[in-house]
């Protein structure tokens, strides 16, 4: 930015970061979903928040680093501590890779437990599902 100041700043909306966080968390084995608490449900009814940001709160500190709070639903039988650590690592890695900004902390809150359904993968709400309606085959 310093060598070409006339180009201006690049600002990334926190909603975009929240979407990155959500998708990164959903790729971790043992995470059945993101968000879905009562507050989220009521909030969505009144605020028209999009589904891909629910369960994620992103704030920015004075240094410009992101602080993330993430509410997840885990699959029964997975080790909570390990899964949460993997979520923290995945979120940190993905956000830094895509935004080139630091992350001060990733707070993980386990909001629910889901039983694994027979015949399905451990991740019931995988990111691939989001694109199922628009993927076309040649």
């Amino acid at each position, binding site marked *: 930015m310093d060598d070409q100041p006339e180009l201006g700043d690049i600002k990334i909306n926190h909603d975009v970061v929240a979407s990155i966080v959500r998708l990164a968390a959903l790729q971790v084995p043992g995470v059945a979903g993101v968000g879905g608490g009562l507050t989220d449900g009521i909030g969505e009814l009144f605020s028209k928040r999009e589904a891909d940001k629910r369960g994620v709160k992103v704030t920015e500190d004075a240094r410009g680093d992101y602080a993330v709070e993430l509410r997840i639903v885990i699959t*029964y039988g997975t080790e909570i*501590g390990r899964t949460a650590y993997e979520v923290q690592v995945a979120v940190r890695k993905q956000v830094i890779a895509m935004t080139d900004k630091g992350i001060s902390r990733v707070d993980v809150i386990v909001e629910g437990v889901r039983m694994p359904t027979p015949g399905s993968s451990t991740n019931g709400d995988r990111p691939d599902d989001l694109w199922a309606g628009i993927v076309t085959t040649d």
Partner: protein
Amino acid sequence: MSPILEYILNAPALVIGLWATLGLLAIFLFLRKPRRLLLVSNENGRLQISRHALHRLLEACCLQLSGVSSARARVVKRGGKFKTYLRLKVRPDAKMDAVQGYLSQEIADIYRLNLGITNVGPIEIEIVGVVPENKEF
């Protein structure tokens, strides 16, 4: 004057008081911080579990037993220890001593190994009903 304003002005104090109480209750419920249990806190961030998720985790553990039809869990932190209450509905073929032994061990393991909680209190199991099995034709 709008009908709503007219209604409020003419309504008796009891009705206004009732609506005000309901409104305050709704605001309280909406703003109330959910009770969460802090499991880990380090430089990477914190790991917390909501009381609802903890209850669901314990109930899911109970439902792994074929003899258990339904389960309700409640956890109370008293004197620094986590006291667990389980209310179960069992099937007629359930062996109570086996259910009690298995659940005591499994739930203690969930606390210690999965959640990292060492100060586990007593686990009280109460059988509140027997659910007959569905007869298959």
